């Protein structure tokens, strides 16, 4: 074993050498240990806070929790916009073994179209593997049940419930409420710019139209947060802290869903719009545009086919005619013109004009015809309104001139936004010299002034503008801001645990009143409108025969297509879209009016405002003044929805 020759060993010298070396090694060991300890001391004591923070930010994540959107009620507490759970099928790719096969099997089980599957695979590529991706956005109850039974076979695929907007009255309220739909890129950018993106981190949809859009901030609420502990996979282990979201405010509208129903029924089969307003407040009682469409379609993302159908429909259901369509007001504006004449002293209540059936400007060949071929004979202001005599108003317009007319009409709000609390509004056209110059770069012709005198020419108004103007008229100059929002309600949770809804009625500052030089002029015009309905033989007498309330009004039949000089109008031989529009404005009761209405019906087959539009207004008023036609139907709806808020909001009014 020891083949080499070994010198005599000096054992103690060797032991000493070894002991020395061992001691050096030991010293190094101690030094190294001190170095290790010093480094750990730095980490654990000096940098403790830094690493504690990093450790916490590793494990603690804030998950946003979407607030519940505020509900919307009508003036009587009937629920118009609800939040309902919708079930979607979602997939976390990471947790699914064989994604292709699983998706195929589940799709077969639940009958999910290839289209949806393709969409899923596309969006899956864009998302991280541990984030859920939607395979189906709206499962039926049957599909939910079917999947639940088979869920164990498909780990990583699950049903998720989300609250989504639901409009129980569907098309009846769409034009007023608008709808909520998925936040698209444009919305997201806007939210980002407004600094609201964080508040929407967990929110699915945003108000796109109508009340839903206008009061988005109130309805949305404030985001809540769930502070959770997660593991390295991002999986939630437990909840550490929970800041509940603040739900959006519930809104109570001035709308009366019963009137809304009547309006829809009265307009069925017609294109047109109704606006009914409370002249005492400016609150909209009913606003309906026919045809309408179901806003619920948009909540879930409307299919291309359905959207195309709405877009391409000749009846233009997407247009909210109450506020977006500019109609020639025709004879409905005669009371306003008469008032202008009185105020400008170009006529008095007794001024008479002879109506031979036509009107001719000095030195011009054109004859402006009355609707009654043989004329009304001698006509004063009252009779001119009762009979809607065109000749009287040609003469009046000629005497006033376009500038005085448009100045006064602008004071009634024509040609401008009313300020209604929805964004979709058309301001119509109140023509003037300056307007024509700006619009067509042409000078104004006197003949056009005459047409303006009977509410034609370039003049267009929205039904809402008509109600607004009529409100100012019946209020004798007191102007109201038209609005849909009556009150907002907020859930207050006291520290004691008591929770209640705090109702705040919305105050609308009145606009500066319209002052006349002679206050009696109001009465002259209003009396004439009263006669128009109440006096036998007047234009709107027949439609209101037998009504129990004291209505007043004014009819109108608007010419839509230009007619040649002397051409006779015959509805039957005129193509549908060139037929006359029927217009009507009304208020009741005559003393202390509670409701003003404007009705516009497009392209009527026979007759004018009196035969087509006035009966519609009458149905609304009948309902309003007590002949509650569909109350029984409504009681069912009321029973389903809690009316706590409604009661208090009535008190608040």
């Amino acid at each position: 074993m020891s083949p080499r020759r070994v010198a005599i060993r000096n054992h103690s010298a060797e032991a000493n050498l070894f002991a020395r070396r061992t001691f050096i090694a030991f010293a190094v060991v101690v030094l190294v240990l001190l170095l290790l300890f010093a480094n750990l001391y730095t980490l654990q004591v000096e940098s403790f806070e830094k690493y504690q923070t990093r450790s916490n930010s590793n494990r603690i994540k804030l998950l946003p929790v979407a607030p519940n959107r505020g509900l919307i009620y009508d003036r009587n507490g009937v629920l118009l916009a609800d939040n309902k759970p919708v079930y979607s099928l979602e997939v976390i790719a990471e947790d699914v073994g064989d994604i292709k096969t699983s998706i195929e099997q589940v799709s077969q089980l639940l009958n999910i179209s290839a289209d949806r599957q393709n969409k899923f695979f596309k969006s899956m590529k864009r998302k991280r593997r541990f984030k859920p991706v939607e395979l189906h956005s709206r499962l039926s109850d049957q599909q939910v049940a079917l999947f639940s039974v088979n869920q164990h076979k498909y780990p990583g695929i699950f049903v998720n419930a989300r609250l989504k907007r639901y409009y129980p009255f569907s098309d009846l309220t769409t034009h007023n409420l608008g709808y909520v739909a998925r936040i698209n890129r444009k919305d997201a950018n806007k939210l980002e710019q407004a600094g609201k993106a964080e508040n929407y981190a967990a929110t699915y949809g945003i108000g796109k139209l109508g009340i839903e859009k206008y009061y988005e901030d109130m309805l949305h609420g404030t985001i809540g947060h769930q502070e959770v502990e997660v593991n390295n996979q991002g999986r939630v282990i437990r909840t550490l802290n929970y800041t509940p979201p603040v739900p959006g405010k519930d809104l109570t509208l001035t709308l009366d869903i019963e009137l809304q129903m009547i309006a829809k029924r009265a307009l069925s089969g017609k294109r047109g719009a109704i606006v009914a307003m409370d002249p005492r407040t400016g609150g909209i009682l009913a606003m309906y545009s026919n045809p309408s469409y179901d806003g619920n379609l948009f909540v879930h993302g409307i299919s291309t086919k359905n959207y195309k159908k709405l877009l391409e429909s000749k009846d233009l259901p997407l247009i909210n005619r109450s506020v977006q369509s500019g109609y020639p007001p025709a004879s409905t504006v005669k009371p306003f013109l008469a008032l202008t004449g009185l105020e400008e002293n170009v006529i008095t209540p007794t001024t008479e004009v002879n109506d031979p059936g036509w009107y001719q400007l000095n030195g011009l060949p054109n004859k402006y015809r009355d609707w009654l071929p043989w004329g009304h004979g001698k006509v004063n202001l009252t009779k001119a309104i009762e009979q809607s005599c065109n000749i009287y108003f040609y003469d009046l317009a000629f005497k006033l001139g376009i500038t005085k007319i448009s100045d006064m009409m602008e004071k009634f709000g024509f040609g401008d936004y009313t300020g209604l609390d929805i964004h979709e509004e058309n301001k119509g056209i109140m023509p003037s010299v300056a307007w024509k110059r700006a619009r067509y770069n042409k000078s104004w012709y006197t003949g056009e002034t005459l047409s303006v005198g009977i509410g034609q020419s370039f003049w267009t108004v929205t039904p809402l503008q008509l109600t607004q103007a009529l409100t100012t008229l019946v209020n004798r100059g007191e102007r109201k801001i038209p609005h849909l929002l009556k009150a907002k309600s907020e859930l207050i949770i006291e520290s004691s645990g008591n929770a209640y809804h705090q109702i705040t009625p919305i105050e609308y500052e009145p606009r500066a009143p319209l002052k006349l030089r002679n206050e009696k002029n109001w009465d002259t015009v209003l009396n004439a409108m009263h006669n128009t309905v109440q006096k036998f033989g007047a234009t709107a007498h027949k439609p209101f025969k037998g009504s129990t309330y004291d209505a007043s009004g004014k009819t109108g039949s608007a010419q839509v297509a230009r007619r040649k000089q002397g051409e006779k109008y015959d509805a039957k031989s005129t193509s549908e879209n060139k037929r006359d529009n029927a217009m009507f404005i009304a208020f009741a009761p005559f003393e202390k009016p509670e409701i003003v209405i404007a009705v516009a019906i497009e392209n009527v087959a026979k007759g004018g405002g009196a035969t087509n539009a006035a009966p519609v207004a009458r149905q609304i008023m009948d309902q309003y003044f007590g002949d509650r036609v569909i109350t029984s139907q409504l009681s069912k709806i009321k029973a389903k929805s809690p009316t706590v808020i409604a009661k208090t909001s009535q008190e608040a009014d």
Partner: protein
Amino acid sequence: MRSTGQDQQKIHNIWQRLHIDVPLLLGLLTLLALGLFLVYSAGGQETAVVYRKARSIGVALVGMFIVAQIPPLVYRKWAVPVFVLGLLMLVGVLLFGHVGKGAQRWLDLGFIKFQPSEIMKLIVPIMIAWFVSQENLPVKISTVILAFILVLLPTLLIAKQPDLGTSLLIASSGIFVIFLAGASWRLIGVCLGLASAFVPILWMFLMKPYQKQRVMTFLNPEQDPLGSGYHIIQSKIAIGSGGINGKGWLQGTQSQLEFLPERHTDFIFSVFSEEFGLIGVAALLAVYLFVVMRGLWIAVNAQHAFTKLLAGSLTLTFFVYVFVNIGMVSGLLPVVGVPLPLVSYGGTSMVTLMLGFGMLMAISTHRRFHV
């Protein structure tokens, strides 16, 4: 130094008869027991992991006991043939070895699979201690050079697998023998110079890309915090967030929520530091220091140059484990796959270590056998 007379008086001592060094055993048992608790915490609080660890502890203790019964003479007798056999097995690994975790470390002999590199951890110090103790100490330069070559052969073969951690430990064990054998300081200086000159060569020609990446990551872990820097960053967060008192056993968020990788193996020290804080760290370092002190005490008191060198080398190599592992998880050293000795989960390296301690016990208790 105590005289042999005193030792002979202790023959009656039951522990002496069993060839067990009690202080060393207590130190080792402390570390092994701590390992059980930590593996439970780091292994997702599963008793199965603890059971497996306990089983390998049992195997290791039995192995240690058996080795302790063998007189150190026997190792010396078999040093050369076993060393040659070991080298052949390492070559075998490179030629026919099994690939695991991207490296060839296992040799499959049909009836048993094992890592020859583990056995080399014991064979190399025995071989070098035998080699240098052939002549009088201090060693001559020619002997040192030959010894270096003997160390280099297994080191390079293992580095080629590649298993940087083990080759480092094996190289150290050889170098420690040479150092303890009294290699001249001038020679040590020259070697250190050569070694540092060798670093660029190592970097450019010998290191694999993943090994270079480890070094880069060590120098700046934050440059790729979710990739290569993830391990070390999470480890430092675990250690640092433990603070002075620690988060408490089973309460470490970095480990319990699985932010920390390789928790029950290489990074178990991070789990310990997170849950027991600086106080626990100080206590653990003290236990390691105690074991090293006892090992060196045995070495100094050994009767023959061979046993002195072997005991000293085994002890110091054990400390290299401690230093490399703690240094790596706390960001002082690049990530090299070295477990925390006796505490980390993983039976193979623990059994090897315990066999080494069995040799130490043999050296400590077989002193009456003079050579």
